[in-house]
């Protein structure tokens, strides 16, 4: 049916390396797949066990009704801010260095959202009645706001991932390797005509603008699940922005880690250059400072207000039984990343990646020290019991993490993880656009020499 095969890899020039992961699969991929799917089956077994015996197989108790499932939920939804938000903001700002990293970010969003939603379902005592949420919705419940905003977010970010993928799918279709039928279906008849190009660019910029308020709303609403109750140290107006900042913070960290792994495994040093890591490292540093500011403001207000119920939760975190977790969080969320990123000289790729791992650990602890200490100290006297996650909860958590990484890996085997057409477009138009932009705000641009960029005109 094909009129003219135009997508031979040599036509792509040096970018042909981006198709390499799809064309050839090394045996290490299959080994990793086995490992990750091993964790997946472990979590399936754990969940079936929990379904059979009830939530009694977890470490949850009275009054700690929520534990690491809810922590996972907040954490995964937070990571999902990696993609969409970062890529959308960079796109809108015309940050040229975004071109090779947006795809890697957007995929994180879409895949990790499923695990955020999954964490809530795993936490339900009666998952068989999940549809009641649609049949008998109570719109006064922040949990229902969550259902609404997360599903809108999932839809919007899927579209936002898919749109810039279309021209690349067309490349794969014309290349005529495996699964050509799938690519033909997904390419929606893309021919790269000027009209199609115009519509696509329009759609991408509309989605980029749309997706930002949706992403902000999602994590705000997640925080309101806690903030709307009257429980000590949950009932806080700062929670909305605090959660959004934390979400972007952990999102950037996971993007950096994903990029470091991809560049190493698929030899994409030309696409994820050191400068990309340096820029993202700066962004991470900014959010480490923001995170510290919010944490400080939140805790100082509680301390100064001196309300007994709030204060006992406060002290359980700062000096009590949650103190080790709390201070580890402060070190991993602020001290380590700030120390590793504050100066250009030490902001190497290795240090940026170490800082990112540290931030992920710290943000997980933050979610945990938000959920559990408040529940352990209700206003009314209660039994002093300790919450320790059981093997069921830990298996499901590990399984979720492993399955997420596996699905991400799988994506790189079907679609280019670096947007080929955007990189190519960047070579053609980026210099000219940048020049026009600079000319637009330079006073008397013709008076002096703005540089010799004329070569990029064509």
């Amino acid at each position, binding site marked *: 049916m094909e009129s003219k095969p135009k997508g031979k890899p040599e036509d792509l020039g040096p970018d042909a390396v981006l198709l390499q992961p799809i064309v050839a699969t090394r045996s290490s991929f299959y080994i990793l797949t086995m490992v990750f799917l091993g964790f997946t089956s472990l979590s399936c077994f754990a969940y079936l066990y929990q379904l059979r015996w009830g939530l009694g197989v977890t470490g949850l108790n*009275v009054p700690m009704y*929520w534990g690491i499932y809810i922590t996972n939920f907040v954490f995964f939804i937070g990571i999902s801010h990696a993609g969409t938000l970062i890529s959308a903001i960079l796109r809108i700002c015309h940050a040229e260095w975004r071109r090779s990293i947006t795809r890697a970010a957007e995929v994180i969003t879409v895949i990790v959202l499923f695990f955020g939603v999954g964490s809530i379902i795993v936490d339900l005592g009666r998952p068989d009645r999940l549809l009641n949420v649609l049949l008998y919705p109570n719109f006064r419940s922040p949990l229902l706001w969550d259902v609404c905003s997360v599903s809108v977010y999932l839809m919007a970010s899927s579209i936002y991932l898919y749109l810039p993928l279309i021209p690349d799918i067309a490349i794969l279709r014309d290349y005529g390797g495996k699964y050509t039928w799938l690519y033909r279906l997904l390419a929606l008849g893309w021919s790269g005509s000027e009209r199609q190009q115009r519509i696509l660019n329009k759609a991408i910029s509309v989605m980029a603008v749309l997706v930002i308020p949706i992403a902000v709303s999602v994590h705000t609403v997640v925080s309101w699940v806690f903030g709307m109750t009257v429980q000590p140290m949950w009932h806080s107006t700062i929670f909305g922005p605090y959660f959004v900042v934390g979400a972007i913070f952990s999102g950037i960290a996971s993007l950096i880690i994903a990029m470091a792994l991809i560049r190493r495994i698929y030899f994409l040093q030309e696409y994820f250059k050191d400068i990309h890591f340096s820029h993202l490292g700066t962004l991470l540093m900014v959010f480490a400072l923001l995170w510290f500011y919010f944490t400080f403001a939140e805790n100082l207000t509680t301390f100064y207000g001196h309300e007994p119920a709030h204060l006992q939760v406060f002290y359980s975190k700062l000096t009590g039984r949650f103190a080790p977790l709390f201070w580890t969080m402060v070190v991993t969320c602020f001290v380590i990343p700030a120390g590793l990123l504050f100066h250009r000289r030490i902001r190497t790729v290795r240090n940026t990646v170490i800082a990112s791992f540290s931030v992920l650990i710290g943000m997980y602890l933050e979610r945990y020290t938000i959920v559990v200490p408040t529940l352990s100290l209700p206003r009314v006297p209660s039994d002093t019991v300790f919450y320790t996650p059981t093997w069921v909860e830990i298996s499901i958590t590990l399984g979720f993490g492993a399955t997420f990484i596996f699905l991400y890996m799988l994506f790189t085997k079907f679609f280019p993880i670096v947007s080929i057409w955007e990189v190519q477009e960047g070579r053609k138009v980026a210099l000219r656009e940048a020049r026009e932009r600079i000319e637009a705000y330079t006073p008397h641009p013709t008076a002096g020499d703005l540089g010799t960029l004329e070569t990029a005109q064509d």
Partner: protein
Amino acid sequence: MPRWGMVIDLAKCTACQACVVACQAENNVPCVEPEQAAKGRIISWLSVLPDLKGQYPNVLMRLMPLPCLHCDEPPCIRVCPVGATGITPEGIVRQTFPRCIGCRYCTNACPYTRRSFNWRLPDFPGELVQALNPDVSVRPKGVVEKCTLCHHRLLRAREQARAEDRPLAVGDYVPACVEICPAEAMYFGDLEDPNSKVSELAESARAFRYLEELGTEPKVVFLSEGEWAGGEQT
């Protein structure tokens, strides 16, 4: 329309726990094995809680029987995503067991921690199966349950009154905990009726509402003990 409420006189209460046992038996609250209880998995609609005030050595301890307080502004019903809990026109905070999805948001939103969760399949060992109250449904695993003010007793009393062609009289409807109280420390009735015992006691100088500052407007009112009268102790 009546507004059912309860008054508990802490000066009379001996903390004998008879109300707790009566509630368990009346409402088919499942038994929990000792090792589960040690993990904090007890289901209890009504428990006698120690309430400590002050710092050692000037400590005052009182024991408070604490059922669901059936707040007029309950924080729990707002947060339920499926509307499995609500408030009846007569002010009883109800729970619809077959609709509950077990997310435990209500248990976390209740500032009094008065809601329980079925961590596993309910267990009624030995003869206890024969002692089940046929008026109250046994809850499945994975749902939240709570005090209903023995709502089934209200239904039965109303049926009885209708059969006898008379209005519901005072004392027709009394929850199990109030009925059993050997010290007669618990009173139950219609808070709307200005002549009822409960509305009279609820107005007394000794009356207080637990964690009143949260604005939940509970319909279970406590009468403070003698030494607590007048409020603060030093």
